[in-house]
């Protein structure tokens, strides 16, 4: 089946390594809750060192593009300090010592199934529950809903999960398709779209079957199997595949009449609305050739990667990289102490065997990068000018439209670090425009 967007590639899927039902992972004794787990401004701590906190209590909040954070467990605030963050660098974090009493915070209310929400009510519930996009980009969900009001005719639930290895969303759909649809129905009730689509890559037959079955009790929604092709789950490519429209360069999905929500985000919305629970846990795929027993776990936010890897049997001797996220866009970790955050869909452990980097890579201008670029950019020329730090040419080549999907670097026979240079190039352009 031909892909429904331009370009893309087919890395080995490796999903078969880990198709186990997610098992709950006991919360550890010490949790590290970053005060910024979303795109936007960090939260200010609402607690002080020594405070007693209840499970689910809001411990940080802020103004502007900001989503509050909650503690998954009851315990004592041990410290508030800069700690390693899976996205790189450090973030001010609240460190909670779990007292295992499980005393619950009941600030959020569980609403009955037949509640009719106004847009403002729903947006408030979603924000107070600390919900961000859980597919990796962690855009504040309340802001996304607000930006779509009155503009959206197509609402898309994104269950594509096109990154190799990861199965968290696949298993979520198999186990809790109904919750995903309930969350989707909430958002649909305020966006009032003409079309509601649950898009799932066609390699996830069981997830599609589960969604189709759950759909029998939901009117006006359809499940749309889409061809398996990376990066089908990227927002812009998914919108193209579902509607044939393009999001204008520099614009938002709403500018193309679309709103896209990851399926895990929708399940979190369902939980917040109908169970009154904030977002404090998520499914994480712990997988890769360098971990002994790959498995899906339901982990409390703030659990260190080391605890997840231990639960999956530990690393093998030839472990080379530990990545937060998938192999195409994930962030490599230099240690295992970063915590699970709202956007952590996988902890991927790769072995040395998977390393195909070369010393001194040289472009041969084969042009394969052009044919896979889903934005139709010229990666090989962008690379040239990024190396030369030529801001004018980089702008002409639309470097800032690059979605950093990694397709070009994946197919490059010379193994050029294309995506790495583009990330550097974007930072360079930002500095140039500031100066």
């Amino acid at each position: 089946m031909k892909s429904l967007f331009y370009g893309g590639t087919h890395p080995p899927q490796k999903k078969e390594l880990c198709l186990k039902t997610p098992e709950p992972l006991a919360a550890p004794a010490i949790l590290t809750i970053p005060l910024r787990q979303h795109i936007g401004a960090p939260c200010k701590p609402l607690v002080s060192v020594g405070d007693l906190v209840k499970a689910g209590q809001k411990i940080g909040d802020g103004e502007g593009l900001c989503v509050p954070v909650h503690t998954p467990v009851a315990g004592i605030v041990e410290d508030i300090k800069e700690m390693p963050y899976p996205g790189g660098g450090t973030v001010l974090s609240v460190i909670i010592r779990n007292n295992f009493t499980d005393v619950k915070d009941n600030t959020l209310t569980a609403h009955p199934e037949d509640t009719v929400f106004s847009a403002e009510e729903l947006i408030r519930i979603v924000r107070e529950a600390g919900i961000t996009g859980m597919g990796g980009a962690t855009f504040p969900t309340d802001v996304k809903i607000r930006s779509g009001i009155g503009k959206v005719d197509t609402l898309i639930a994104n269950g594509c999960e096109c990154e190799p290895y990861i199965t968290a969303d696949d298993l979520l759909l198999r186990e809790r398709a109904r919750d995903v649809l309930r969350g989707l129905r909430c958002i649909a009730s305020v966006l009032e779209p003409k079309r509601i689509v649950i898009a799932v890559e066609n390699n996830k037959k069981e997830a599609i079957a589960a969604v189709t079955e759950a759909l029998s009790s939901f009117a006006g929604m359809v499940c749309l199997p889409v061809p398996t092709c990376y990066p089908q789950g990227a927002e812009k490519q998914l919108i193209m595949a579902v509607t044939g429209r393009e999001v204008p360069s520099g614009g938002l999905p709403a500018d193309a009449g679309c709103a896209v929500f990851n399926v895990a985000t929708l399940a979190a919305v369902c939980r917040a609305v109908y169970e009154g629970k904030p977002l404090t846990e998520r499914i994480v795929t712990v997988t890769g050739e360098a971990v002994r027993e790959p498995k899906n776990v339901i982990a409390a936010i703030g659990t260190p990667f080391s605890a997840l890897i231990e639960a999956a049997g530990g690393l093998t001797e030839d472990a080379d990289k530990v990545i937060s996220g998938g192999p195409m866009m994930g962030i490599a970790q230099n240690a295992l102490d970063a915590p699970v955050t709202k956007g952590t869909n996988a902890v991927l452990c790769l072995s040395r065997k998977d390393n195909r980097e070369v010393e001194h890579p040289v472009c041969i201008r084969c042009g394969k990068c052009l044919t896979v670029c889903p934005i139709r950019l010229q990666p090989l020329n962008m690379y040239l000018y990024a190396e030369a730090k030529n801001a004018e040419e980089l702008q002409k080549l639309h470097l800032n439209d690059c979605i950093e999907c990694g397709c070009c670097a994946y197919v490059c026979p010379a193994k050029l670090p294309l995506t790495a240079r583009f990330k550097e190039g974007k930072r360079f352009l930002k500095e140039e425009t500031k100066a």
Partner: protein
Amino acid sequence: MNLRVTVSPHIRGKDTTGRIMTDVIIALLPTLIAGTLIFTYRALLVTAVSVLAALAGEFVYHLVSREPGNLKNMSAVVTGLLLALTLPVTVPYHIPLVGGFFATFVVKGIGGRLGHNCFNPALASRALLMLLFPVGMVRFTAPFGILPAGNIDPADIITSATPLHTMQMPALPRVELTDLLLGKTGGCIGEVCTVALLVGGAYLVFRKVISLRIPGAYLLTVALLTLIFAKDENVVAWMAYSLLSGGVMLGAIFMATDYASSPVEQTAQIVYGAGCGVLTVVFRYFGLFPEGVTYAILMMNGIAPLLDRLFARRIYGAKKG
């Protein structure tokens, strides 16, 4: 535990530069074998000199420039091989020696390293050899002759008019088309056997090393122009002889598709191929030499970057039109 930290993506495809170059060498083997069968083992000796000189040029360039690089990626072998195939089998050995070295040291090395040289190294080198050694470069011998291994006194060579010489008259060559397909005719080592070239080209397309855009546009343009502006009453025969004589096939399949010197945008590739076709016919019809492939491709090399700019695809999300 030492964890390696690099920027995404963390997995890479199987293709390598070395694999691509090896595929090109494999694709050239039928042509080299055919050239050897037609022009004796001397064809192999000329090729060996050219390849070794090309490797030496690359080696010396990296030594002098201190740029990192390695001969393992085989691209110098491809360059030497391609140059040899554009030479008559009778050339004195200093011609492939100078040509091979010049191709990698000057055109490819000083001209911008692997991947960034703006002219096809084999053809640019051939153009230089035409200037330096005009006599040795056009001394074509008949197929299946007996040739010594050492240098040949030009006076001893029984030259034979190639089909292109006849067409310059203009007249249809007195060679059967099937002989042109099989290579039973005079010409350069690698240009005479069309069947071998087509087999190599099909292999490269099958392996996705090249696409049909450049060779297809090139050959179709030559076919169309020689059909419309045929110099013989039998227009179809004129077109067929135009396609099967001289270096058009070698040029379209192996030279115009050179990664470094050709465009990367798909539409640009078609325009580029068509441009090569137009110039080839123009040079053949109005030029001093019977052949025009070398100069046609070199001229199009010069505007390849411009074509990539002109025919860049509209990016996702940019305004249409």
